[in-house]
């Protein structure tokens, strides 16, 4: 599973990064940059929390 960002929805709240600093970086403007790598099995719950906390539903966990 990978974290996928809808760039049209990201409003740079930054909550995903607070929730999952190892899975999502923020760029210099504050927009989210999910790491391109697979979410490690042990971090699944963290990834799901990052998806849930986005006020604009910009993140999702997907197979591809």
């Amino acid at each position, binding site marked *: 599973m990978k974290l996928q960002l*809808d*760039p*049209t929805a*990201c*409003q740079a709240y930054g909550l995903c990064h607070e929730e999952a600093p190892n899975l999502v970086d923020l*760029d210099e*403007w504050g*927009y989210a*940059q999910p790491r391109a790598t697979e979410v490690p099995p042990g971090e699944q719950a963290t990834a799901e929390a990052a998806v849930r906390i986005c006020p604009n539903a910009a993140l999702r966990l997907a197979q591809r």
Partner: protein
Amino acid sequence: MTEPSILVGGTGHLLGPAPHTVEHLAAYRSRGGNRTGPTPDELLDLVEEAELLGRGGAAFPLALKLRSVRERPGPRVVVANGAEGEPGSVKDRHLMRARPYLVLDGLRRACEVIGADRGYLYVADPVAAERLRAALAVAPPPVPIVVVEAVSTYVAGEESAAVRFLDGGPALPTAKPPRVFERGVGGAPTLVANVETLAHLALLAAGRSAAGDLLVTVAGAGQPPLLAEVPLGTPLRELFSRPRAVSGALVGGMFGGLLDEKVLDLPLIPQAYAAAGGALGCGAIWLLGPEDCPVTVAADAVGYLAAESARQCGICVSGTRGLADALTALATGADPGAGAERLANLARWSAGLPGRGACGLLDAAARVAGSLLRLHGALAEQHTERPCPACLAHPPAAGARLLVPPTEPYFPQGAP
């Protein structure tokens, strides 16, 4: 500005024998058009054998695109994309204005190949839209086809923006996935194909393949723009009757970045442009003459793109603005103390921004900036030390110099 002149090379089947006139149905039929021709399966094989690549910009193999929609459950839809949002390109407009029956024939063939129950002609140019409507009235196709007038913006021709507009929304790109072949107009698997690509399909069906040709629009260097049909692999140099002083080019419309003066000898094929670090895209090429500084041209292109951002993706708004402001400041010599930081920002952004927007606009802006640093790094650095006379004489103006007509009146005139 002057109207484009026309050069017909290669087979000449795309532009036809009378490119300055509007082709009538009888003339199109006399050239093998609208005949029964091969079956849809046979035509798909012909496309495969011809290794036809899409002419809208991405150079995606048409056979693969046709198959990917055809193998999905129906209903299916075909969209002929005539939005032609690259301001340096006129070739699609010309085809639709001068040879509406050829474009319609191609769209009908595409519907047959993938088993679509309807088709759309998605067109930004009102003159082309009128011609196509007139042609539809003269020769109604077996599947329902409607002309939809698109808006004249850079992103309107992006395939997901086209689908969104046809579904009643704004002509703005959507996040992928899904791709339009999975979920397009009304949720149906949709083939979005450029109008030149569809013209090729009609010519293949008529036994008059021009798959070895492409249309290009060449402008800049103080010369009138040129619309040309040329064999793939022709170098630009061979298109000019007199040698031109050219120091480089902005290629692929605004999508392929800058190339240096070797562009004149680069074969006009997507692979060669990609290998040179650019992209042939829709075949629009803007040449830099002796009076054009690449820094200003880059600032102009990125300024245009920043203004055309759909403003949906925050990263595109911030990224294109950052790039455009930095390039404009380099060109105008503003605040020279910040020059080093500006160059460092440009380097970091041009590497880090591609792929982060919902469409390719941000990638295009990053590519222009990256190509400037790669090819003209020393020149860019000089701009932080002393004012550039060429930039000051022709300062960036949000891309005005990069726009190619047509404006009205424009050839050819008359009803189809």
